[in-house]
């Protein structure tokens, strides 16, 4: 008898013991003289169940999780006997948390082996590019525009318009840049797709190259993501070997090549112009716009710069048609969003769903509230530049405009949950401190304002002239909001002001704890 077992290679599984499990399964199998094939799939995104191990059966893949070293022998017994086990979750595809989702971008993630390009192709990969190769530039751009896809990196700018600008530009060289800097706390979708389905990102970038007439692309990945860096490098090599990248893509006469570049621990380098500076080997100082990167981007050439998830949405659109994508969603937010549920969360992970679902459904029903079991007091949506929402605002639908109307943003789709032990003036202070540390230094409101913000919140927390200092804080926030060049300085006031607005009781003297220094 031989078994095919799946143990994720995703960093979220590895950080809770997946690599050790591989060794343990191999050792157990050897002891039993059992033939076992272990596939390192990506994660399906049910991260509270990681490491989630699956076994192939005639009825589909049966999942077990979370599996620890001590469970390996008994899980293997259950796999062989197709019998019961406390950790048995049933057929993976039938797990409710997965069935509630609409997986367009993450359709293969956790299912395929991310390494061989053949597995990608066998799961409908490269159909989008194959179709794109038979189309002209205007046709591809029109599909992207009609799909309604908006940039998933945070700003929500229509992807089709950006591509058209670059397609129309005349230049000797053009570039495609993938923003894989994913610095927002509470987000990990870029990381997951790069580790679990790297070819979908590669295919999306290749389609972009064909569409706008660029032959070279860069993927800028943050250094905090060592597994994603390896996965993308391996993916690029495999795509080249198979002829999906290179001088003559699958005999089409079209050329496109890719290179991975690694960041160096600067949050601001996620801002597109700072990223371009960094790619050129300079300090990540934000550039003033105009000129837009679409006109003068990398090395001064017209450049498409998009988030990982924006590129990863493209193959579906080209393969299934713009309408198939645009049919999902609400208002001007079309398609699906891979939402990330994080922090103090019971069922944390990746939940891809059409726009329009409410914040409350996501936090209470899907995420199941907190893992500490205490009531949810606040959630931060959209990373360190996103607003804090109290449960009274959980009726807000997940939609760019609906969030903006409530002084928030959906950003890159991360939701960080806090229970009732959270101290909101401390979180506001953190937002200011983070801005001070990560500021590129170009504008005064951001560089100095954030440091003043930290000092002011400290005074409030010490009980010094609280009313006056609250006014100072609001003033500072306004100055930053309107006087900053980019969204680091410009949006840091969102977490600060939302904390103050919805949790004013936390902004006053903090009781001194004896043990504190």
């Amino acid at each position, binding site marked *: 008898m031989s078994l095919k077992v799946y143990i994720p290679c995703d*960093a*979220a599984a*590895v*950080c*809770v013991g997946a690599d050790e499990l591989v060794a343990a399964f191999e050792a157990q199998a050897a002891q039993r003289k059992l033939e076992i094939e272990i596939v390192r799939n990506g994660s399906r995104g049910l*991260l*509270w169940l*990681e490491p989630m191990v699956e076994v192939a059966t005639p009825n589909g893949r049966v999942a077990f999780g979370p599996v620890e070293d001590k469970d390996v022998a008994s899980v293997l017994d259950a796999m062989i006997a197709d019998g019961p086990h406390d950790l048995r979750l049933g057929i993976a595809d039938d797990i409710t948390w997965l069935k509630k989702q609409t997986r367009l971008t993450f359709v293969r993630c956790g299912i395929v082996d991310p390494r061989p390009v053949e597995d990608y192709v066998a799961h409908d990969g490269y159909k989008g590019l194959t179709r794109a190769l038979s189309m002209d530039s205007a046709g591809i751009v029109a599909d992207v525009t009609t799909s309604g896809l908006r940039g998933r990196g945070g700003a929500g700018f229509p992807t089709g318009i950006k591509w058209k600008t670059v397609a129309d530009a005349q230049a000797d060289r053009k570039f495609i840049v993938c923003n894989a800097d*994913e*610095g*927002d*706390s*509470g*987000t*990990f979708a*870029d*990381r997951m797709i790069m580790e679990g389905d790297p070819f979908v990102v590669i295919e999306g970038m290749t389609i972009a190259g064909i569409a706008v007439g660029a032959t070279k692309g860069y993927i800028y990945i943050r*250094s*905090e*993501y*060592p*597994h*994603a860096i390896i996965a993308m490098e391996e993916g690029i090599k495999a795509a080249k070997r198979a002829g999906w990248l290179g001088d003559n893509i699958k005999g089409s006469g079209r050329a496109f090549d890719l290179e991975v*570049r*690694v*960041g*160096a*621990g*600067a*949050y601001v380098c996620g801002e597109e112009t700072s990223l371009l500076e*960094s*790619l*050129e*080997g*300079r*300090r*990540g100082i934000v550039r003033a716009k105009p000129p837009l990167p679409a006109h003068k981007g990398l*090395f001064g050439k017209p450049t498409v710069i998009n988030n990982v998830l924006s590129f990863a949405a493209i193959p579906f659109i080209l393969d299934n048609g713009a309408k198939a994508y645009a049919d999902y969603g609400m208002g001007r937010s079309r398609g699906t969003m891979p939402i*990330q*549920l*994080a*922090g*103090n*969360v019971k069922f*944390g*992970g990746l939940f891809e769903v059409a726009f329009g679902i409410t914040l409350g459904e996501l936090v209470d029903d899907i995420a199941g509230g907190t*893992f500490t079991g205490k009531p949810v007091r606040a959630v*931060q949506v959209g*990373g*360190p530049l996103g607003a804090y929402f109290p449960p009274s605002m959980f009726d807000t639908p997940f939609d760019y405009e609906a969030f903006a109307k409530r002084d928030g943003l959906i950003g890159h789709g*991360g939701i*960080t*949950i*806090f*229970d009732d032990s*959270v101290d909101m003036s401390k*979180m506001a202070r*953190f937002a200011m401190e*983070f801005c001070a540390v*990560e500021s590129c230094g170009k504008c005064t409101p951001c560089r100095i304002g954030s440091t003043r913000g930290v000092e002011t919140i400290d005074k409030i927390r010490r009980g010094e002239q609280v009313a006056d200092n609250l006014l100072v804080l609001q003033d500072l926030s306004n100055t930053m909001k309107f006087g900053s060049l980019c969204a680091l300085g410009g949006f840091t006031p969102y977490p600060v002001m939302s904390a103050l607005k919805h949790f004013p009781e936390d902004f006053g003297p903090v009781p001194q704890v004896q043990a504190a220094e």
Partner: protein
Amino acid sequence: MNAAYEPWSAARCTEIIGAYAHVEGGVIVVLHAIQHAFGYVPEPAIPMIAEARNLSRAEVHGVFTFYHDFRHEPAGKHVLKICRAEACQAAGGDALTARAEQQLGVKLGHTTADDRVTLEPIYCLGLCATAPSAMLDGRIVGRLDEKRMDALLVEAQR
């Protein structure tokens, strides 16, 4: 000094710089490679990069100091990075950080007196649903609680 790294050698540094000479805009690529070899970016490397790439020394120095990743001096034998970003704070990261600081006897950003452990903050490892998270010498660890943190600290002090 950490045995995993090579001792400083100007010849070796020249070799590394040369290996990336063809990389367009590759100053950060070279700095990473130098740090990978020596464990930090030794000061003499800066003018060497500048000369090879036809840049001013100030320019290269500016790049080197802008990015949090690059070290001015060797780290301890082990580097423990604890995530201090929001999701890890929400999951109890503050108390665990305090615990690490107390047991190692150093604050974040410092190295123990015996040069064994450098303790540093990191801002998000993308492991925010299995938080709190940390990284020990490049190995990632999630779902930290007191027990797992203590085990990590023992390992770091070896």
